[in-house]
């Protein structure tokens, strides 16, 4: 330690001075204070979500489409379904590509090309979601000449890929080389080994990574603003503008109507429950799916 000499503690055998002891206590106190200050908004956010949201979640909210301004009632059913549609499209596009890229990184990318892909996917992870929205707009909306669930799905898929690729890579690398060799030794080809042995062994980890990516994009709003756009009515067609829960929350939150504010809180609570629920459900399913002793 280069700085050991300047350390007052090195001064000698004298008992630790009062000032140093006080500093120690003060710093510990400050650290505890920061924890409290950080937990405060967390508690406040979840507290208000439940407090404001729970009263507005009812059957109508979950089964009806929005009512025009001024009319009470109505719900976000179309937005909930719209979100699922967009997320399904995103998963359909993003998950295979992400897992494929992850397989490349762990099984074929232990070299300079792999390093480039690794670095690029980490960089992609940091691209602001609104910028991804612009790209999906240019790729899909400009060509189709109208907004669509597909465009929203493309935007979210682009966001899922780097996360899935990197977690898949890590999970596959955790599978011991000996397991791969066991399969090679039986005359199993490399592709078959990768899919049926390596990926199979790492399934629960890979799924966790996918869910992480899913949870991350499930609440995204910015990239949907000018891709999925939103819709006051039912839509199940991938090439039409579609409502999404997060978009609806945004629209309602910045509106001047109390009734809509109430619904925005309810929507936010539903969104959080869906995200947490999806992650939890998959975790449980994965745990029960594996053999005893594995």
């Amino acid at each position: 330690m280069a700085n050991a000499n300047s350390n007052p503690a090195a001064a000698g055998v004298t008992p630790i001075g009062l000032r140093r002891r006080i500093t120690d206590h003060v710093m510990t106190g400050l650290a505890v204070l920061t924890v409290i200050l950080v937990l405060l908004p967390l508690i406040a956010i979840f507290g208000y979500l439940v407090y404001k949201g729970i009263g507005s979640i009812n059957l109508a909210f979950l089964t009806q489409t929005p009512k025009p301004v001024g009319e009470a009632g109505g719900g976000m059913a179309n937005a909930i379904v719209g979100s699922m549609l967009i997320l399904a499209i995103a998963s359909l596009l993003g998950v295979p590509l992400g897992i494929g890229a992850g397989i490349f990184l762990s099984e074929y990318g232990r070299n300079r090309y792999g390093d480039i892909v690794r670095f690029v996917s980490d960089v992609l992870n940091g691209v602001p979601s609104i910028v991804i929205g612009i790209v999906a707009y240019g790729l899909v909306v400009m060509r189709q000449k109208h907004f669509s669930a597909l465009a929203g799905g493309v935007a979210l898929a682009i966001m899922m890929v780097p996360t899935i690729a990197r977690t898949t890579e890590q999970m596959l690398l955790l599978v011991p080389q000996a397991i791969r060799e066991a399969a090679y030794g039986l005359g199993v080809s490399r592709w078959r080994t990768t899919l049926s042995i390596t990926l199979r062994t790492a399934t629960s980890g890979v799924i966790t990574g996918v869910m992480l990516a899913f949870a991350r994009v499930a609440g995204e709003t910015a990239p949907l603003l000018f891709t999925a756009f939103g819709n006051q009515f039912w839509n199940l067609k991938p090439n039409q503008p579609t409502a999404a829960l997060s978009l609806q929350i945004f629209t309602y939150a910045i509106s001047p109507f109390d009734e809509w504010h109430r619904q925005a809180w309810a929507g936010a609570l539903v969104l959080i429950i869906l995200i947490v629920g999806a992650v939890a459900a998959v975790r449980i399913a994965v745990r029960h799916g594996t053999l005893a002793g594995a």
Partner: protein
Amino acid sequence: MSNQALPRPRFNAPEPEHGPSERGSKVAPKVEPRTAPLLQGKVSEIPDAFFAAAMRLCGFAVVALLGLIVYQLVIGSHLSWHAFGWKFFGQSDWNPVEDQYGALPFIYGTIISSILALIIAVPLSLGVAVFITEMCPVTLRGILSFLTELLAAIPSVVYGLWAIFILVPVLRQYVQPFLATTLGWTTLFSGPPYGIGMLAAGVILAIMIIPIISSITREVLTVVPQHQREGVLALGATRWEMIRLGVLRNARAGIVGAIILGLGRALGETMAVTMVIGNRPEIAKSLFAPGYTMASVLANEFTEATGDLYLSALIEIGLALFLVTIVVNALARLMVWSVTRGQPARSLA
């Protein structure tokens, strides 16, 4: 490998404990006769080559995605770049009616709100990270890390919703009057307390980036070798001195990287900021005044941009935002990698 302990083997007198001959016939395996191999036919190499090519294509697609993003942004902003050149980033006039576009107010808003967020978030995140890794009892450690990471799972729009209805009124009624009376002379905290404005944006951004900074800092702190701590403690240091000299000093590069990653997230954050910053393209000195960021102007005006030049100007803002976040993120990655040796900062997701 050492065979010293073994008795010298003599082939003609093998008397090991488990010689095959001594085994009772009870356990002796009866090796079944072999039959003709069931697997017939030649193995083709084509599926293997095809699979490898497909996976390489997926890996390449990640790079291609980045290329696609750059391409879309460059093509889209072409018109605006030709019309305004570098002036685009120096002008503060944003007037769609007269087709005059200058991005300065947005750049200003993005930078100020992010810096404000860092000023608030850095001490808090570092405090939490230090507390969790160095001070807190092990039983509490898992719970606290889980709770701080839970903050990262909340969608941006939900932060915005909460900020509009809870944070902004609190700022308006309590925080802003207090800041105005105590620090009003700095002119940073002057003007009418709307609640909504730069300060609110900074605070909500701070809350959002705390989990990133603190979790990566935690990762970095945990890789500081134990002997660095023990070395300082052995000199008779107090716990705080041990943390300052033995831990923080060794993790400096990684912590700076974590902070820059937080900055990268703050720069591009859209929804929550859009909902509370006030969305007025003006450069005001007071933090109470409304502002506008690059991300929020995209969120608000992109779908309304009717003119080609208008749209192009917005895309150019997107390009600028993209380039800045790329540089910031790449820098941060390299700094974090230098400490954690290439393991990716996973908590980013």
